[in-house]
């Protein structure tokens, strides 16, 4: 890695080679924040509560110029709701996530773990209560949203200690999530969305109805976007016994159109329910993904 490079803009594979989840995520966040001129998240309320020391990334409009003039130290104003922002990161750990389309490339799960760690670090640095839920057919790991010190390490450990799961029945897991998220806040869903769209949207819509700000990060491997492979192949589904024999060269165009249509359908449905939707491939730098989320 060239000296002075920003980890958030590097190839995820190179970032992963730097060290474990914590190091990579922290490096990504540092790089990300170095490139920002304002805080990535804003609360809903404008009721002032207290001042706190300025951190890189905070929006300049919240800088208290008077204190700066008097003390020559930067402080920002905090508001009631902002201090109480709760964020819950939902990471899909189903078997389909543990797949990579090319040797050396991060699996979707590995990418999601690093992205979730970076995102949680970003949130916690702003003193936002952040939690983690991993799920496949059911909830696997639940780390309630906290802002206290050591929360990030708990989240990281939770990611590390969650094994790859089985199938994905997201609607059931999401239904369980909604029951657990009593206070409104932000919900980040990182998944390959290989489940029933309508059922999943029902659960997400319910979250939205409960007042949560929901962001869906649709994670795909590049090989899932552009079909390649041997002249003829039997593709075996990771989460079921289903398989299909295809000739990738013949089917590539139609497959690409199918994927685009699926993405468009997700995007359209999310927009309709005021849910933020972003499509990310695992070859994109983490910084790009974070930028979309903030």
């Amino acid at each position, binding site marked *: 890695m060239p000296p002075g490079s920003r980890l958030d803009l590097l190839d995820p594979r190179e970032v992963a080679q730097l060290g474990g989840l914590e190091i990579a995520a922290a490096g990504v966040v540092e790089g990300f924040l170095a490139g920002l001129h304002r805080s990535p998240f804003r609360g809903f309320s404008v009721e002032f509560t207290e001042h706190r020391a300025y951190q890189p990334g905070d929006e300049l409009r919240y800088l208290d110029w008077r204190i700066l003039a008097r003390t020559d130290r930067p402080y920002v104003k905090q508001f009631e709701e902002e201090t109480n922002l709760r964020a819950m990161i939902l990471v899909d750990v189903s078997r*389909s*996530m543990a*797949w990579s389309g090319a040797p050396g490339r991060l699996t*979707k799960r590995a990418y999601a773990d690093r992205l979730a760690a970076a995102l949680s670090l970003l949130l916690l640095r702003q003193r936002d209560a952040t939690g983690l839920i991993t799920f496949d057919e059911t909830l696997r790991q639940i780390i309630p949203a906290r802002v206290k010190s050591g929360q990030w390490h708990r989240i990281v450990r939770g990611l590390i200690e969650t094994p790859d799961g089985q199938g994905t029945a997201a609607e059931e897991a999401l239904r369980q999530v909604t029951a657990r998220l009593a206070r409104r806040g932000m919900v980040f869903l990182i998944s*390959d969305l*290989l489940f029933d769209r309508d059922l999943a949207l029902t659960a997400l819509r319910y979250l939205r109805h409960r007042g949560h700000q929901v962001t869906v990060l649709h994670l*795909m*491997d590049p090989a*899932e976007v552009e*079909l390649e*492979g*041997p*002249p*003829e*192949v*039997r*593709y*075996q*589904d*990771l*989460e*079921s016994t*289903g*398989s*299909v*024999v*295809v*000739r990738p*060269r*013949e*089917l*590539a*165009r*139609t*497959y690409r*159109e*199918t*994927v685009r249509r*699926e993405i468009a359908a997700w995007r359209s449905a999310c927009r309709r329910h005021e849910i933020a939707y972003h499509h990310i491939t695992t070859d994109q730098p983490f910084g790009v993904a974070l930028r979309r989320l903030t």
Partner: protein
Amino acid sequence: MTFLHPLALLGLAAVGVPALLHLRQRRLPPVLDFPAVRYLADAERRTAKRLRLRHLLLLLLRTLLIAAVVIAAARPQVRGWGRATGHEPTAAVIVLDNSLSSGVLVDGRRVLDGLATAAHAVTARAGSGDRLWLLLADGVVRRGTPAELDAAIDGARPEADHLDLSAAVRRAVAIASGATLPGKEVDVISDGQAKALSGPPVPAGAVRVIALEPKNAGVPNRGVGDLRIVDTRLLVPVVGTPGGKAGTLTVTFRDRVVSRVLAAAGDTLAVALPAAPVGWWSGAVDLEADELRGDDRRLFVQRVHPPARVAVGKDAGPFVAAAIDVLRDAGRIATGNDVTIAAFPAGRFAVVPATGDPASVGAVNRALGLRGGHWRFGLPATPGRLAVRGAVLNGLGGVPVGRRLGLTGGDPAGVLATVNGSPWLVRDGSSLLIGSALDTGWTTLPATPSFVPFIDALVNVLAQGEAPVSDTVGAPAILFRTSGRDTTGALVEGPDPSESDLTPASAAEYARALGAETASASSFGDAVFTGSARGDAGGLLLILALVLAALEWTVAMTTR
């Protein structure tokens, strides 16, 4: 279709390769994990119909491509394709009309020479795989190599025979049809004489008949027809192409010119022959020379003999007696004992009708035996109609015979007439045996106009052991038949008079009658073997293969 390199067709086994590869790929594809199978299934479902069609199209195109390349490598030779580079093995029968009419001179050149040139054009185009026959006017079918047939063509001379062209072509078609070669052709090379055609149109069937187109203008000609002597007059018909000019006709008898007149086709002249002593005398009729010399001369023979001296027995019956009276009055016979007509054999030569008395049959047979004969009268036999052998008894055929005795025991060579296939009139040494009495109770013969000529023939010809003067087709000549020192008959040869009319058939009539395509003299050589002509289709197949390859590439690239 044939192939220059048929072994290359073994490569056709390769046409199954695309299908085998297709099936093999279908059967053993590698298995890979893939998370987004639901997208694949959706895409596959939406494209299944198109892909299936694409696979079938590609399979078809690739199979055709291989087949086209392999067949092109085998160099297919296709009948009637493009510019001919050869022809299929063909059974070709050349009908060369060298009948008398082919000897006519047109523009100073013999017609047969032109016909021979056309025939050589056929042999020159024959290949090693062809089978050739040559049919000439003599009716002999010659099979041989082109060189052998060339020699036969060069050796052909105008015959005196008439060639029934329709019959000859029918025969040629039968020969060609019987061959197992893929091409069958009859090449008719004739002057197109209208009288050479006969009967219904020739059913050519699968055989291609190509005929040299007849020339429209007929050559004027006159010739001497069949001569006939009635009493002492020579009847001379002049035959030939109607409308021709008259020419000088000269009749010579016993080496002396007896008549010289102008005659044209269609005339019939009666020339009185001068009296001649007893014996066989010959003569000739000559016409002024014209373009066809072969029919300008014809010979004739006159038999001059004394009347037979005949005696008639009482049991011969009234009809015989009456006929003898008529013949005697006409000077055809005289009274004497040279020939005796009686139910009981007697005299130097006995004419013995069957007796109506069954009790006398034995005595008659014994008398015949004593005369050295072998034939005997037998039991009554079945009624029927007369069938005769030889020209002497012409006119007796079909006459009913109601009653007769069988004739048995002699040499069948002596049988002159039969009833129901069994002898009725036989010559046996110094006797003539008749199976019926010459009475209307036995046969209606005595009541017919043929009866008096029959009695005349019995006593003047058959009893004398003489054969009549007969005609046959051939170059003008006279052949005398002899028995010991006696002359017993004559054969006069002359050209077939039907050859003298040189009026050609119209092209349409000619083609219809022979079931043929016609070709002019200049194009005849190019027309033969074109029915089985073959062009090399390899080039086209290669172009087709290129087109198929382009199509395959287009389908493969644009539908992926």
